[in-house]
């Protein structure tokens, strides 16, 4: 097996690290394709995420970030290694069980929002509840309440294209949270947003996470939001090569800029 890196081992003394483990993965490997064209996306990754913690995964394109969050979220099967998310091993749950687990416990925020353009905001936000077989009228009520919390309570009947990028991402976050998941997976949540809007979105995510004991795994290239992370795991070539606290990472980034 390739060299592995343990996030938990290099963790800061943050109080959040005293909380229960939400995600515990060890020695994760994943290879796409076979033979000469095989691509080893993950080469033995160890990662832990605590309840209420915000972990950022950073690194160059193709380093395995998306594959890692896919494995953590139960979207993709790992080849080797052990992984428990909220106490469940997806391999033991099977495909149908994993799908049900995701529906109940995982929220997703996508880079391009993925709001269904022909549905109203309330309907978009209600989707996870409908997937969980909540009655339509109740799902819409809860969706409206959620939109109210993110400041879009007056626009529940609008369609996504009438909203700015930041507003759309707030709707996407509402959708990810409406069914009270325990794990939130965000793929480049600020990459389509300007700096100020990106900051607001991250503040919203951090506040929600703190208030709900929600574990967040955020994939990002955006150095401007590193300050929101409890910890940052840098990935390269399918491995986690460095782990730092959000503030420490930002400090290092500033120093690097000054030297240049």
């Amino acid at each position, binding site marked *: 097996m390739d060299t592995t890196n343990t996030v938990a081992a290099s963790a800061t003394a943050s109080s959040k690290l005293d909380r229960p483990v939400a995600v515990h993965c060890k020695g994760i490997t994943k290879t796409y394709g076979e033979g000469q064209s095989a691509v080893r996306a993950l080469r033995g990754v160890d990662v832990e995420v605590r309840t209420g913690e915000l972990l950022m995964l950073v690194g160059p394109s193709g380093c395995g970030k998306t594959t890692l969050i896919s494995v953590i979220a139960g*979207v*993709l099967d790992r080849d080797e290694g052990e992984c428990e998310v909220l106490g469940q091993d997806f391999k033991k749950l099977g495909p*149908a069980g994993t799908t049900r*687990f995701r529906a109940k416990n995982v929220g997703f925020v996508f880079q391009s929002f*993925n709001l*269904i353009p022909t*549905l109203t905001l309330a309907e978009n936000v209600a*989707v996870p509840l409908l*997937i969980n077989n909540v009655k339509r009228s109740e799902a819409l009520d809860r969706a409206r309440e959620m939109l109210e919390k993110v400041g879009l309570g007056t626009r529940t009947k609008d369609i996504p294209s009438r909203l700015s990028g930041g507003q759309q991402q707030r709707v996407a976050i509402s959708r990810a949270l409406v069914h009270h998941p325990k794990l939130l997976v965000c793929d480049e949540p600020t990459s389509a947003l300007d700096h100020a809007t990106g900051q607001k979105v991250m503040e919203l995510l951090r506040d929600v996470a703190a208030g709900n004991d929600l574990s967040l795994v955020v994939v990002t290239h955006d150095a401007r939001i590193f300050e929101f992370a409890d910890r940052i795991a840098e990935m390269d070539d399918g491995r986690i090569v460095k782990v730092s606290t959000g503030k420490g990472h930002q400090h290092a980034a500033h120093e690097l800029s000054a030297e240049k």
Partner: protein
Amino acid sequence: MIRIAIKMLMGDKLKYLGLLAGMAFAAMMISQQMSIFLGLSSQTGTFIREMTSADLWVMDPQVRFSEDNIALPDTALQRVRSIEGVENAVPLYKGFLKAQLADGTRTSVIVVGVDDATLQGAPARINDGDATLLRQDPGIIIDDRDMGTKLAYKRAGGKPMQLGDHLSINDHDAVVVGTYHGSPSFFWDPTLYTTYSRALQFAPRERRLMSFVLVKVAAGEDVLAVKRRIEEITGYAARTPVDFENVTKAYILKSTGILINFGIAVGLGFVIGMIVTGQTFFNFTLDNLRYFAALKAMGASSGMLIRMVLSQVLSVTWLSFGLGVGIAAIFGAFLAKTDLAFLMKWQVLALTIGMMLVVGVLAALISLIKVLRLEAGVVFKG
């Protein structure tokens, strides 16, 4: 989630109308082409179907279709009449003859000579009278649809033929004593009815002139048993109207190439319709792939996604099927006023909707495979 699926389908009005128009075009194309083919195929049996008085048609075994003139000897009639189970048997003449109208217009006509005594075999729908009109010498009855068209005086400016007009059939005088309302036939020439004896006068002299013997089976007798008996005893072919129609249809299909060629065009229309349906749905699902992928990631099961896609296919297919078939039916209603072929049977509608559903579902599911497999790239990068 089904309501969500329907809103995904109909939410973008422009795209939805495009989808509907594409599918309606496919439905129209398939149903219209099949109806034309069926109509044309059906028209090959018009003459046989309209001869409602016959339970069996007796003919030379080498006869391949209704217009095939391989005559029987006169003795055949008596032989058939003597067979047990035959209530009555009458002769029928049918042949292509040359005619010249009063203005000099020459044309080919189909002359049908029916039994002088019983007039069995005369047209069913005779206008202003009945088959006894044929007893006026030298009377013929013509199709009212041909009066201003196939039997019009082309050399006199297209004036329609009238009752009482004379024409020459193979240099024998004939008078139009009545008209009937016939049905469009695959065989183009105008069909004139007269008596059997008069038809023999019109026809060029040959040793054998009796085209068919029409048999009425006695009450309580099994038609198929009588058929077998006739064939065993006489050596002639005895065919029920349905058999004879099928034999005629098969001959035209296989031997002339007319229907085969047309069938190829119909098949092409069918394939184009199917491709339009498949392509339309494939593209629609592909356009929405990232949303389906997001739903899958959020915990929608494969079964739920398939149900969503099926509901989309079903709703748009039903609506476009109605529109397309409606347009095809209007087209058919216009054709009904002409001799052109169009027959929209329920089987055409069933096959059209069935194939559209199958192709639509397959196309949508093929485009959905990536999502059903839940490829991470699709989920997170759309």
